């Protein structure tokens, strides 16, 4: 169903939304990201793939400076969004994170109602003028995250009372409601059934019209279905980065080849 997208999306604009140069991340003495260069274009979906522990999440967290919250984490190098260095002293990470939304690897709904979960971002950023406005944003976000039908009758019930997969979609809805320019999704479909996965993939494709989406996934099929660019990480290195079609059909690096065919990881 998405295979058609892959070919038609192969042509994308060339203005890079995010550029990373020589990025190194250390957790104390652990060197988790080693000299990564990458350019992520606007209006594309970029997939990060690689074996567990290779640094996909770590690199993703550099892009919205969530690594700042880990005391032992140290980021070196240069990451720019629209040409602006996001690690510049003048950049307020809070402002940055409003622009770069994130869906975390583990679902982390607030222990509040479903409605309040989704409404939280719009509320603190003043995105709605009145209650009706906010209701609409919430409904919209929940619809896009394929949760509306299940949640519409229980909006006031706790988000933590949802199933794992529902929580994951709630977190997606929550991130979408803030209308970020870039959306970072760390394994957003890991706990979803095929139908919900298909819906989320549809959402990702739709988001691409306006946003840049970076998605970490362990599913090769998913990467192939939704992304235009794919980056393969291995032991902290960015081994190979290019058009998704090319990575999956004719990878240059032997490590990529063996990972894709299921020999590493």
């Amino acid at each position, binding site marked *: 169903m998405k295979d058609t997208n892959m070919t038609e999306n192969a042509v994308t604009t060339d203005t890079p939304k995010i550029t990373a140069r020589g990025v190194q991340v250390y957790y104390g003495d652990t060197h988790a990201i080693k000299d990564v260069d990458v350019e992520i274009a606007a209006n594309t979906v970029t997939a990060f793939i690689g074996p567990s522990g290779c640094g996909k999440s770590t690199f993703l967290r550099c892009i*919205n400076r*969530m690594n700042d*919250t880990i*005391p032992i984490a140290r980021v070196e190098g240069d990451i720019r969004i629209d040409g602006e260095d996001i690690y510049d002293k003048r950049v307020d990470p*809070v*402002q940055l*994170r*409003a*622009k770069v*939304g*994130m869906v*975390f690897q*583990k679902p*982390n*709904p*607030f*222990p*509040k109602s479903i409605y309040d979960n989704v409404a*939280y*971002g719009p509320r*603190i*950023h003043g995105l709605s003028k009145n209650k009706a406005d906010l209701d609409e944003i919430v409904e919209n976000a929940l619809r896009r995250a394929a949760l509306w039908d299940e949640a519409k009758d229980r909006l006031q019930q*706790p988000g*933590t009372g949802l199933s794992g997969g529902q929580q994951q979609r709630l*977190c997606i809805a*929550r*991130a979408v409601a*803030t209308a970020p320019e870039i959306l970072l999704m760390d394994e957003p479909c890991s706990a979803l059934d095929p139908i919900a996965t298909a819906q989320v993939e549809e959402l990702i494709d739709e988001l691409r019209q306006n946003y840049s989406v970076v998605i970490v996934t362990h599913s090769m099929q998913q990467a192939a279905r939704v992304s235009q660019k794919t980056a393969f990480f291995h032991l902290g290195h960015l081994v190979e980065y290019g058009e998704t079609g090319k990575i999956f059909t004719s990878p240059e690096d032997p490590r990529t080849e063996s990972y894709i065919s299921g020999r590493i990881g």
Partner: protein
Amino acid sequence: MTDVTAAGPTGAGKGSLLNQDDRTGKRNRAEGRFKMYGLIAVCIGIGMLVLLLISILSNGLSSFQQTTLRIQVDLPEDKLDKSGVRDPSVMSKVTTFGYAPLLRDGLVATLAANGIETELSDKDVAELISDESVAQLRNRVLANPDVIGTTIEVNALASGRIDGYYKDRVTMASAERDSNISPEQLQLADRLKEAGLLGTSFNWLFFTAPDASDTRPEAAGLGVAILGSLYMMLIVLVLALPIGVAASIYLEEFAPQNRWTDLIEVNISNLAAVPSIVFGILGLAIFINFAGLPQSAPIVGGLVLTLMTLPTIIIATRAALKAVPPSIRDAALGLGASKMQSVFHHVLPLAMPGILTGTIIGLAQALGETAPLLLIGMVAFVREYPDSPLDGGFFDPATALPVQIFNWTQRSDPAFVERASGAIIVLLLFLLVMNLTAIFLRRKFERRW
């Protein structure tokens, strides 16, 4: 796969499931023994508690009952207000010495009116009444001068020995040896009781009256002590809660992790273990000798107890903040919330039950704390109620519940043992209410997940 499990004659799973094997039996016996040890420990604890409660209740419950005499008292104008103009300043010149004969004559007349005959002298008859009643009568007249010239009914406190007689503390045998009371007086009291002139009723004065001197245990109450404790708890709550919570939030959420914050952390933990009397010495040196605050004042007590409670609140609050999963903070920050928003919108509400529990436990500790208050002079004999906090009542002399208990246990008259036990019951009730409040608040906040 199947080969591996099916084979293996040495495997643990051999034999029938219906027969317990040796290892399982051993494990079950060990578990049974452990459960028994636990049960014994719990029983010992509960047994001690029950013993404690029984001893306190048996000693102290009677302090909530008080024996009084119903007497008709004439209030002649020529004795109380010769001028007849009811000028309060003139009337107050008549001291309790002027009122004592009125009460005595009233009792004697009441006896006669009810046909009770006695060989006791009028003076001995009057000893049935507490000296405190005279002061009470005087206050009543001064507050309401219109009663002068009429006959009023007075509910006079019985003296401590008579009160003790009806609480089985004083017996005919002990009265023989007692210079303060004679068996004849007790018999007279019995006859008064038969005539319905003497009876026991709920002792409201115990909660409202101030302390009384050594010779008047029947009049001693907790009024000043309860007010003093209340004032100090207010001060502790108003100072320790915001300071403690602010300090914890700063240390837990904002402060960089370095040698300085480690040092502060260690010091706070140590502070919580400092004996309370040390805080009393500190209070004496700083608040009274250096800052010149008055002795025996709730403000000083409150400040000392605040110092003492702060570490408890900080430790409890930090533990509560630590228990909030980091993923909640990540979620808020990831949505572009500021650090402060993430703390105040998400972390603090989740930590609230823990913070409130810690605070109330700290307050309960402070309420029962005695040693530091002794050092700052709160053991003084105070009969004046402190003013309301708005009129500077925090600076007026007062006592506190635990200090009052300590004070009463130091007195010679056994009637004060009853008072002290009664005060302990009151203190325990306050603590119970506080703990119930803690539980209630925790439930209420937890319901918001």
